[in-house]
């Protein structure tokens, strides 16, 4: 067929791209007031995400959310984070972001939650 060498090259790169960093399924604290959000933040993980964040709700100091590991997030995941941030704010406490997560920022933008999350 007309699939020449050029085709094989493209295929190879695509497979290269397809390799994903395996997500860690569990969240772990990064010290007091810090919390690393897991790679997968979808509806299936939202319950454990909420449980993890709940422990920080009453933290009197600054809470830092490390989002650098986030690979996949959906509305449910973002809703949990947004609720957390809003709740902290209503208590006059701050949340700070650590790291960047393109998936998370893009999702927040599309869902109109960027300003609530103070993600700029």
């Amino acid at each position: 067929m007309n699939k020449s060498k050029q085709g094989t090259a493209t295929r190879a790169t695509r497979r290269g791209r397809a390799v994903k960093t395996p997500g860690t399924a569990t969240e772990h604290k990064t010290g007091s007031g810090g919390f690393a959000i897991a790679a997968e933040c979808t509806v299936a993980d939202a319950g454990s995400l909420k449980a993890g964040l709940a422990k920080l709700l009453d933290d009197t100091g600054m809470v830092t959310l490390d989002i650098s590991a986030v690979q996949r997030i959906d509305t449910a995941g973002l809703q949990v984070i947004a609720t957390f941030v809003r709740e902290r704010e209503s208590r006059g406490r701050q949340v700070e972001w650590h790291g960047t997560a393109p998936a998370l920022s893009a999702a927040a933008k599309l869902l109109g939650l960027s300003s609530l999350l103070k993600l700029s």
Partner: protein
Amino acid sequence: MTIDLTQFHDAFFEESFEALDSMEAALLKLDIGAPEPELINTIFRVAHSIKGGSATFGFSDIASFTHSCETLLDELRSGGMQVSLVISDVLLKTVDVMRAMLRSTQSKQPLDMQKVSDVQFDVEMMIAQKNNAPAKPAAAPVKAAPAVVPAPAAPASAAPATPPRWEISFRPYRELFARGNDPLRMMRELAELGELTVNVDVSALPRFEELDAQSCYLAWKLELAGDVPEDAIKQVFEWAEGDCDLELRLTGGATPASGTNTNANGAVAAPAAELADPSSNATASTAASASAPAAADAAVADAILSGAAAPTAAPAGAPTLTAVKDAKPDAISAVGDSGSIRVSVEKIDELMNTVGELVITQAMLSQLGAALEGGNAEKLRAGLAQLERNTRELQESVMRVRMLPISFVFSRFPRMVRDIAQRLGKQIDLKLTGEQTELDKTVLEKIGDPLVHLVRNSIDHGIEMPDVRMAAGKDAIGTVHLDACHRGGNIAVEVSDDGGGLDKERILAKARQRGLVGPNDVLTDEQIHDLIFLPGFSTAEKTTDLSGRGVGMDVVRRNVKELGGKIELRSERGKGSRFIITLPLTLAIVDGQSVAVGSETYIIPLISIVESMRLKETSISRLSGHNEVFSFRGDYLPIIRLHELFGVEPRARALHEGLVVIAEGDGRRVGLFVDDLLGQQQVVIKSLEVNYGHVEGVSGATILGDGSVALILDVTGIIHAASMRAAA
């Protein structure tokens, strides 16, 4: 509380497989050059739904693959590309890949990703080639950054009039996530359609402690600018239908005022407020769901929202889950044919069983009623007659529930034949007849694989290459014919071809070489044909991936036998082959004629009976040995004495003292000699195989009205058994 999304997987897989079937059928119907738009839409919808579903369930491989298909299909739909043979070929391949991906995901088996990426590559190549060709003037889908006010100059210069603007109010119900929908995906798709402005409504968000992580509390007011067809928007929300309140409103576009661009952010609040007002429903002629109680839905949503706004929304969790479960059948039927429901086969089997018992009870009552005398007996008998009628109707209805037309199996062949023929470079015309012949679902499911094998076999071994055919004076295009029909009490499914037929010499030589046949044995044609059903037998000179590995025909025969059927082969060198599969209907109930032989009662299925008669001595002839025949309408039919076959002491031995039932089985007619005819009745088949073991000539047993057991005769088996005895 967590919701296990896997509970929705089955429904998704089932729907997707069905959708793929219809996509395949539509692809095969697609006319190259002048495709029907509706067909392309059907195909597109399938790819779209599978993409959406797999994305929300997290099957990202499938989602990515279907996305490529969708892009290609969208080009076809919009007329950006023309349907060509190459494209329809590739699309057919994508159906296979999607099916394989879904199957491997469903069974959690690994998948050959090489094939997936090959096909995806082909699809992407096609799209790329199109893009390299004279570009379509329309702008490529811009991943519009939301909430961005565009510079007024850019779009204004592109379009002479203000592009129309859609105002979308999207208020999901709580269970939206649990149904496998993700608003994020919808936003992403909307953003691809045009310029999207997103305003989120977080007023329903509860306090963090009260948040149910799997419920959706957010709602959105969206603005989509651009020349976007309403259908495209609806399609984005297609999977969420029934799980949200959705309102679409078209504004702008009519007035070419350039002001609309500048007020993008500021103006949102005003129409949005309007949208929230239920009274505006009347004007929103384009309300997405188009369901009558749209206003009611809105009211419900309002109630939910206001309820949730109060800090006492905690118990929402549990009821939400039940709501999800209850609503599941709705979701399923909404996608499938609205006039049908899905019922598990076990439930139907249970129903069948109960009806079977009812038939036995009814027969028992009828028998009792017939013996009664007295004033009320007549009335009782009238009631019993009615009961019998109703029972029969009930039983027929239940049986029909299990019956499906064989087209369910046949429908996979056009594609298969096309593919194989293409691969082998043969030209093949597939003829399907009798597709509406109905048979039991269980049989239907199990007959698929054997048929696939036979059809492959016909194409691979049967039909010759076009040049060979021409040389033999045949049409270059070979014909494979699939036929189904009711024959006697059975279903006959035939696979025939007009190919080269079986090479008896080669089969025999091969069998001798393998020691299956002694060097000096002389075999009849039938026996030679039978050889190909032996395990490990193949005469193909080289094995292909299609056939010739020597697994196959024996498996086919075993499968057919497991269904209580049989397979025969007729072949003529140079003319073609015919495989005839005969299957029992395997219905739980059969119409039977009960006959008496000595003290025993046997049931002969009515469908096998031609007629019954008393023989005159003059019509009987005796042949050499034990064989007796009688003349019947110019034919001589063999007589089988049932009492001899079953070893029962008869009341009548002289042929003219009893009766013969002329029965047909396997294309042959015989006279079954019995003492007497008792009556016709419906009997419930109780499997002898399950409860005892297979007996030649008996297809099952039944319980009669008086509680005694009668054997149901299998005429074909009896003919076979009798001819074996005669030969012995």
